């Protein structure tokens, strides 16, 4: 088991382990409700906890910057946008119509099948893990350096895409003169 030997290099992993399993419980339960809850408002609230938990994963994986980005943009931006969308377009307190039973079973069965296939592949594949995994360090400076050197073109393209999307969204919801 070379992966075990590799992981000994991680110091203080017990605390991270406990945090990981707690976060996993939160993420999977809330993702289940976000995906399958009947009420759409409930699903959005469950997505909130799911995204927060995934930000916790990013901290455990050594990128605090990505965790903060996730909380600011996903939780603070996209989720609020989704909430506005729900409240503007729905009778929010009314529940969705019940799904037809055969569709429900079909979706659940195909989902479980797909999950089983993916997990079989993950279990079978010989994953290579690096011998030494660097200790968590501040990652803001390297990310800033890389954004303005190696990833400059994607960075600028992402900026232009954001601008175009905002203009396009404002154009789409404009008040039309009929």
């Amino acid at each position: 088991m070379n992966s075990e030997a590799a992981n000994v290099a991680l110091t203080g992993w017990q605390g991270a382990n406990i945090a990981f399993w707690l976060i996993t419980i939160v993420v999977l339960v809330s993702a289940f409700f976000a995906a399958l809850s009947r009420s759409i408002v409930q699903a959005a609230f469950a997505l909130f906890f799911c995204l927060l938990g995934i930000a916790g994963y990013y901290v455990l994986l050594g990128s605090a910057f990505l965790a903060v980005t996730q909380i600011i943009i996903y939780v603070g931006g996209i989720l609020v946008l989704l909430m506005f969308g729900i409240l503007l377009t729905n009778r929010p307190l009314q529940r969705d119509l019940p799904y037809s039973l055969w569709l429900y079973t079909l979706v659940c069965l195909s989902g479980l099948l797909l999950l089983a296939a993916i997990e079989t592949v993950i279990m079978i594949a010989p994953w290579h893990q690096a011998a030494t995994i660097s200790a968590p360090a501040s990652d803001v400076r390297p990310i800033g350096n890389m954004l303005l050197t190696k990833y400059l073109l994607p960075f600028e393209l992402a900026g232009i895409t954001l601008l175009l999307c905002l203009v396009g969204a404002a154009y789409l919801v404009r008040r039309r003169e009929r």
Partner: protein
Amino acid sequence: MNELSLPQLMGFVATHPVALPIYLIVAAMLFVLGLMACMLRRNAIGILIGIELILNAAILNFMAFWRFRGGLDADPTMSGPMFGVFIIVLAACEAAVALAILLNLYFNFGSVEVDKMQQMKH
């Protein structure tokens, strides 16, 4: 592995650090749940929530691969977090445009249920 009892499982969890396949399995579960939401939901915003779950599963995979390849020292170009940041930016774009389209559909059709949208032009 199949005959693992619960105390044995707890002992395994307590004595083994979390490795790459566990992160991959969690991400696979998130992906499948998102896919199920996309297939099952009638409300278009529910489908959007499913897409957000799928995107997060993808970022989690990128981050796990980056981390267990060695992290910051082995890959100073920060490919994992960088993928994550760009995916989050594009998800923000996607959510904004999708909600604009949904508002238009709501004005035209009176609901955002995807079953009722069967015409291109109202």
